[in-house]
């Protein structure tokens, strides 16, 4: 069993809106293990990005606030740390890659400048020349051709895939223990996505970091993650290792999600079946129903589901589900 580096318990994040407090993340628990990848999947608004931002303590306040729970990194609760101490961890021990490589790089600084900035902050003993050499080394690490030249270029001179590589380089500068990747390939084409995912896997093997992979693409999850948490309306509804989750999804939402992706095999057998869908849509966070959040879209709904919210309970070893009527196999 790998070592636990990050332990999130009962995380609750709320946002103040015109229509009162909205709970974006409600009692979320997860662990990140050394050298392993945890996938967090869910649709827009499910709270997956907010959970990740909380770990970095980057929730904009106001309007947002972490109102409960603990985030333990190597045994220390990050939520208790003074901001100055948090700054030494952020970008250093825990780093993050964002979805939009186009907007997360500063257009008026060279790529080299932006990589060197990390060293300036976290490794102040390096001089300018060493920093520059380190920057070139990082670009080489993420597979950018002719790094000596690229290091002097501006973001607009690079393609989308290259920019995402630069983002990864920046995140990995200090060899972080935890890397949070928030939809790292969503803005990229499939062939470039394949390159980036392979690169991340390779770097994980080399550096042994734990990764939190946030995505809505179940294909990406299946290919990159070891464990998966499925989120719906701010809660984790199911959590298991990747193989179990895909073979035996227990929560009706997880199952629905998997069936709504077209697969190639279905079309090989002549007549195409209709895609399975989940009826209705995600309820707005301001109008969550009493009881289970999924009740209005669920085919197994009973009176009980409309009264109380199920708890996230283990159904077998390493497999938890939040449902009164989990699907049995």
């Amino acid at each position, binding site marked *: 069993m790998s070592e636990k580096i990050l332990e999130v318990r009962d995380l609750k994040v709320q946002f103040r809106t015109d229509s009162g407090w909205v709970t974006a993340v409600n009692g979320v628990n997860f662990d990140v293990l050394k050298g392993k990848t945890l996938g967090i999947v869910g*649709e827009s608004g499910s709270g997956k990005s907010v959970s990740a931002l909380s770990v970095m303590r980057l929730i904009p306040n106001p309007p947002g606030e972490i109102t409960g729970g603990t985030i333990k990194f190597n045994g220390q609760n990050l939520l208790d740390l003074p901001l100055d101490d948090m700054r030494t961890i952020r970008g250093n021990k825990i780093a993050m890659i964002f979805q939009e490589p186009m907007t997360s790089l500063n257009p008026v600084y060279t790529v080299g400048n932006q990589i060197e900035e990390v060293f300036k902050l976290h490794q102040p003993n390096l001089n300018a020349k060493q920093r520059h050499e380190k920057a070139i080394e990082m670009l080489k690490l993420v597979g950018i051709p002719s790094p000596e030249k690229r290091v002097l270029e501006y973001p607009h001179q690079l393609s989308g895939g290259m920019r995402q590589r630069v983002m990864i380089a920046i995140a990995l500068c200090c060899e972080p223990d935890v890397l949070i990747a928030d939809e790292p390939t969503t803005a990229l084409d499939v*062939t470039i996505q394949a390159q980036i995912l392979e690169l991340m896997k390779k770097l994980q093997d080399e550096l042994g970091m734990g990764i939190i992979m946030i995505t809505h693409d179940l294909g990406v999850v299946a290919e990159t993650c070891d464990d998966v948490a499925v989120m719906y309306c701010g809660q984790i509804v199911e959590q298991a290792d*990747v*193989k179990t989750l895909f073979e035996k999804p227990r929560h009706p939402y997880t199952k629905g*999600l998997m069936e*709504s992706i*077209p697969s190639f095999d279905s079309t090989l057998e002549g007549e195409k079946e209709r*895609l399975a*869908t989940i009826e209705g*849509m995600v309820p707005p966070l301001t109008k969550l129903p009493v009881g289970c959040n999924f009740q209005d879209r669920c085919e197994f709904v009973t009176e009980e589901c409309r009264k109380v919210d199920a708890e996230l309970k283990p159904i077998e070893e390493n497999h938890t589900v939040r449902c009164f009527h989990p699907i049995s196999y």
Partner: protein
Amino acid sequence: MSDYLLEVNNLTKRFPIKGGVFGKEVGAVYAVNNVSFKIPRGQTLGLVGESGCGKTTLGRSLLRLIEPTSGEVKFNGQNILELSGPEMRAMRRKMQIIFQDPYASLNPRMTIGDILREPMDIHGLFPGKEERKKRLYELIDQVQLQRDALNKYPHEFSGGQRQRVCIARALAVEPEFIVCDEPVSALDVSVQAQVVNLLMDLQKDLGLTYLFIAHDLKVVEYISSRVAVMYLGNMVEVAESSELYGHARHPYTKALFSAIPMPKPGLNKERIILQGDIPSPMNPPSGCHFHPRCWMATEECKKEYPAVTQQSESHYYRCFNPID
């Protein structure tokens, strides 16, 4: 009447690049280069490719929303590139488009009812008051929205519902052909499936013909009877969708399909990871545009662009060294 609703021959769209003090032309981008294909009536042609390969330009050229440089677009046997402005406007009644972003393609100041009425006003359809009302209800029912939606504004709807409004707007003038330009890319998975099903039901009920553009190969493969693959403005392979997945001949098609992450853990499939990025269309590589990234490339590929090889009636590709 021919079997093919749409027949495109050697369609080319060239964007000049101007530079220098006098705005002289310094180069050109062939966003769509000599593309030919046909779509049988009532069927769907899927169009895939990476960003910048010209799929959107192609879709818009067909409706002359972007004026093509040369070539032929035959709709019901008539070359629409020869039509005058007013004739073309009348023709657009038969050909409609659905855009990618349902947040940007609906006017936030118009009610859904007004949005749906506008195309009918332009084309003078269903003029009577009762007739018009009946038609609006019919449209709303077809896309499975509530009838009270007609008095609401776009901001009151979710992404999936807005896309349904866009579909209803396209259907309002009773078109025969719809260009679907990434209609589900901006939607969540569970909603995406609903919209895909809706599009397929409408096709069956109304006998529509689609050009379905998307970069999600799983969706394209699912909805289309045939799929065309584009790379840097060229159509590199066209085949039946079932054939393309298992028996692609062009190396790019093969690489594209192998790059899709499949929702099956532990599936150890052969993966081809292409090196490098798509070259700039301003300065495409010589010969076959794909050769710098292709693992099958030979000297020949660097010099000449391969001609079309017709493998069967419905399957053709442009490659000197096709995969067996």
